[in-house]
Structure formats: C-alpha cells, structure tokens
C-alpha cells in the first residue's frame, strides 16, 4: 500500500494551511480592489491547447494522460492559457477590456530530488484588451500585492523585452542567433556571452551594447547608462518609456521596492513588452512574475493585447509567520452532552469552539492560542 505522496507533491498541515489561507486572502483583497473577477477553470486541459499557446512548449514538464477517445490531456501548467481560451470562447461577443483573477493549483513535473514542488497555487490577474497604457496599473497592482505579503524586504524588478528585440532588429542579428543570445543575456552568463559575441563579428558599438546588457540593472541611475549605449532612436524611445513608467510610479507613491533590469529577456516568443519579477528576502526564486503578452490571444483567434502576473503562494510560506488565533476548547462529562452543545452554540457566534468529551464532573472551557 502506498502511504506517501508522489515526487514533488506535499501535504500542507497545521500552521502551513493557516499561513497560506491568510496570505491568499490578503492577495485576493488587492485583486478585488482593482476590479478583477474570479475565474475557475478545469484542472485538466487538452495538451493541444498548450501547444497552440507556446511554440517551444516543454512537453516533458507536463503531467499527461489520455481521455476515452485517446486524446492527450494535461494537468494545467498555468492559468493564463486557460483564460486565453476562455476569452476566445465564452467572451467572444463581450466588449473588452476584461479583468480576470484566479487562485488555482498548477502543475509542472520538476527535476527529481531538487527540492522543488510539482504542484503550486498560482494566484494572479490578467488584464485583457488594454495596451501599454495599462502597464502602470498592472505594475501598481503587483506592488500593492507584494506589500500585502507583509514582509519588510522585497523588490519588484521591471524590464522590457522589446529593448532586446528592437536591438536585434536594428543590429540585424540573424534570427537563428537571437534565441541563444537572449538566453546568455537572461542568464547573465557573461563568459559564454562574450564568446558568442566574438564569434558573431559585430560592430563594436553593438557588441558593447549586448555585452553591457546583463549588468544594466539597478535603480534610477540605470536609465542614464541605458540611454548612453542605446545605438538607435527606437531603443532610446524604450528607455524613455521605462523612465516615464518609473516617474509615474513615484508620483503614485511607489518610491521603494522598484528596480530595473534591461537584460531581462526570458521567453522571447511569449512576452512582448514590459515584464517583471518580484523577489523577497529568504526565497531563492521569484515569487511573483508577469508581463505583457500581446500575441497570445491571437493564437486563440482573438487579437487582444494583454498583461498580467501571478504569485506563487507556496514559495512564500516558509518566510511568513503564522497568524495567531485563539480558540476555545469545551470539555464536558458524558451526562452533560446536550448542555455542552447548547453552550457551544452560543459561544460559536464569536469563537471557534471544539467539543471534547472528558472525565471531569463539570463543563470546563479553556482558551488556547494556535
């Protein structure tokens, strides 16, 4: 008999559950305040739906099985794709913009024994049908969400994938080299990047640009440097827009907890504009991530711009304190069961009460903190 969990899966018990529920509530309150409506989608999708969405889908990372017609099914690996599907079907006659929020478990097969989870709760929003103008709103919402984690030390790092893409176009980098170049820059793999650039025979100015990109990060001071190495007016325009975004965020009161990284270029064929990741002290991976993905919905037959982000609640749990709460324990002897129940009914209006049969002669109430 199997009495343990499969690899990458885990049970949440005791204060872990309390922490997660409390965090979820705080995050969802922020989403609600921004006018997002909750969507619940099925746990299982056709693999085909994901293949339509991502050209380079890593199929081996998905849990797959067959339905009765031998079609391949998969456990959903995110909520953005199901929502894109919903937009294209259920919402095809509704006028955009749409604001969706969700809190659902998503699944990815993780490397064995690497200490990663294969099932996590993804809690996020998608703002569909509005262009770059709404970037500010989505980022403000992300910052409010991070504030709701109630942790002291956190940062939201913002980049724009167009900066790299436009640079590649202007510098006429061959299509087949772009993915590799992007990967070296995104990984800040400085040694390999240098070797790759040397092999490409580029103009020195352009070479310097790509060489600088991985470390082109920090706070306000980074714009000056970015501007300086921008070798085309189109690049300068992107720097100006990001700076404007920064100024606007400051005007709205989001002074702290923001940084920029121009060398942030993951998933080239997915993100089309700004992208951002949230980090907190004590967690080795990003706990919030998102960005603009204007080309995804087109693949489902609705050409709408979109921007969104999600929080991986489970990654934060270890860094959070459990909320303290008080509960009542009501001990009663066998002959006073009904009396005890009546007492409990009254107490339950304001308290959590658990009934415990005991040997004592009288009903006894004890307050305990969890």
């Amino acid at each position, binding site marked *: 008999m199997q009495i343990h969990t499969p690899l990458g899966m885990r049970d949440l018990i005791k204060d872990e559950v309390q922490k997660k529920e409390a965090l979820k509530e705080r995050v969802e309150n922020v989403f609600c305040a921004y006018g997002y409506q909750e969507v619940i989608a099925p746990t299982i999708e056709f693999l085909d739906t994901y293949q339509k969405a991502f050209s380079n889908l890593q199929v081996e990372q998905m849990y797959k099985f067959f339905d009765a017609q031998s079609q391949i099914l998969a456990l959903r690996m995110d909520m953005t794709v199901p929502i894109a599907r919903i937009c294209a079907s259920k919402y095809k006659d509704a006028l955009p913009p749409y604001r969706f929020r969700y809190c659902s478990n998503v699944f990815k097969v993780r490397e064995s024994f*690497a*200490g990663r989870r294969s099932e996590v709760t993804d809690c996020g929003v998608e703002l569909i049908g509005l262009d770059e103008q709404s970037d500010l709103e989505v980022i403000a919402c992300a910052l409010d969400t991070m504030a709701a984690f109630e942790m002291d*030390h956190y*940062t939201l*790092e913002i980049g724009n994938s167009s900066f790299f893409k436009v640079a590649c176009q202007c510098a006429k980098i061959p299509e087949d080299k772009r993915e590799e170049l992007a990967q070296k820059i995104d*990984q*800040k*793999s*400085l*040694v*390999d990047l240098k070797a790759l650039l040397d092999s490409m025979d580029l103009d020195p100015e352009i070479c310097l640009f790509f060489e600088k990109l*991985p*470390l082109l*990060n*920090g706070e306000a001071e980074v714009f000056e440097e970015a501007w300086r190495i921008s070798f085309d007016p189109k690049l300068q325009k992107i720097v100006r827009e990001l700076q404007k975004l920064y100024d606007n965020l400051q005007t709205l009161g989001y002074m702290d907890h923001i*940084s920029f990284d121009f060398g942030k270029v993951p998933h080239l064929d997915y993100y089309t504009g700004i992208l951002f*990741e949230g*980090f*907190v*002290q*004590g*967690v*080795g*991976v*990003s706990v919030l991530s998102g960005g603009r993905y204007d080309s995804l919905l087109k693949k489902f037959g609705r050409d709408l711009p979109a921007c969104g982000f999600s929080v991986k609640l489970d990654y934060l749990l270890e860094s959070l304190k459990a909320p303290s709460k008080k509960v009542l324990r009501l001990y009663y002897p066998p002959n006073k069961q009904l009396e005890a129940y009546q007492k409990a009914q009254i107490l339950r209006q304001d308290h959590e009460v658990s009934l415990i049969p005991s040997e004592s002669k009288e009903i006894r109430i004890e307050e305990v903190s969890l």
Partner: protein
Amino acid sequence: MSLSIALTKGRLEKKTVAMLERMGYGTENLKDKGRALVFEDTKKDIRYFLVKSNDVITYVNHGVADIGVVGKDTLMERGNQNYELLDLEFGKCKFCVASLPDQDVFQKVGHVKIGTKYPQVAREYFLSRGIDVEVIKIDGSVELAPILGLADGIVDIVETGTTLKENGLVILEEVCEISARVIVNKASFKLKRNEIMAVVRDLESVVKEDAHKNGFEG
C-alpha cells in the same frame, strides 16, 4: 547585508581560498579548517562553506548560498538556473572525446557506445554533431571503459592528458574548455546587488591582474 558563499572542496578549493586572500578577505578560518563546515570571514560580513561541486549548485539554486564557485564541467552537466558572472580562469581543463587509436568513434559505422562521468554533456555533444550514440554512465576511471571493451570511446575532462596517454588513449576531439566559474542566485542578485557585485568586482580584479602578468610573461 551578510553574504553566503559556497565553495567547491577539493580541486578548486586551494586556489579559490588563495584568491580570496589576495583580495584582502579574512580567510584564516578557511585555511585552518579542522572539521568545521561553515567558516566566518574574519574581516567581511561573509560566511563560507565547503561542499561538493554538485552541491554548490544545489545550495545556490535554493538561495541558501548567494554566490558559488564551481567548475564549468559541473554547470554543463547539471544545467544552470543561476547567473554565471565570472570566469576565474583557474582549474582549467577541457572536455574531450577520446578512444583507443584504432577505434575512431566518429568513423565507426554501427552502434557507438560512449562511457562517461558526464552523460548529459556527452549526449548533447554527440546530438549537436548529429551522431546517434549510447551513453553509459561510469563513476570513476573512465579510461578503463574502452580498454575493457565496455565502450567505444569516452567523454571526460582532460587537464594534461597524461592519464589518457598512460592508458593508451588518444584525443579525438575537444568539446570545450572549462574552468572555475562564479554563479549567483537570481533572487540574491536582486536583493543584495551591491554586496554581490563588490565581491565579483574584487574577484575580477585579481583575475585581470593575473591575466596581465601572464600576458607579459607569455
């Protein structure tokens, strides 16, 4: 903010510690280590720990270590999700394909078997060359595999080539050069950028100093 650095014990250890010392860091505890596993820097707000190369990557992946020093060979075999900011230019060697002189695996028609400690590296290299091979994982003395007929050839790291020569093997192809690298956890980089970049810059200046010196001598 305090930093944690994971160092690879063994082959790369001495040179890493020597480098830290030249940077003016307080390495006394690291040099006189006894049975301790964690070492405080006596001058900086840094904590070191010495672990096996594979574990350096694991500790950095999880952000338990902010920075790691580890060989490119291990990074290639394991795959790297961290930033790789610097080549320390020591621990230099090469990944090579080798075999007995009369058994060129690139010419062989039919099923080819490759013995290696680095199955991922071997698989990817032959894949990139468009050659279909069976990779057999071996944990030590890889040179033995072609001699005993377990494999047609091997993929292994070669420093001087002496071990290969002594066993009658020849290098068929060089896959790539490897050396010690500095990796940084992504989240740490965002939250402790200045502290981390200070260490990276210090390391870089020592690397550059050596390159400069070697440039003159060479």
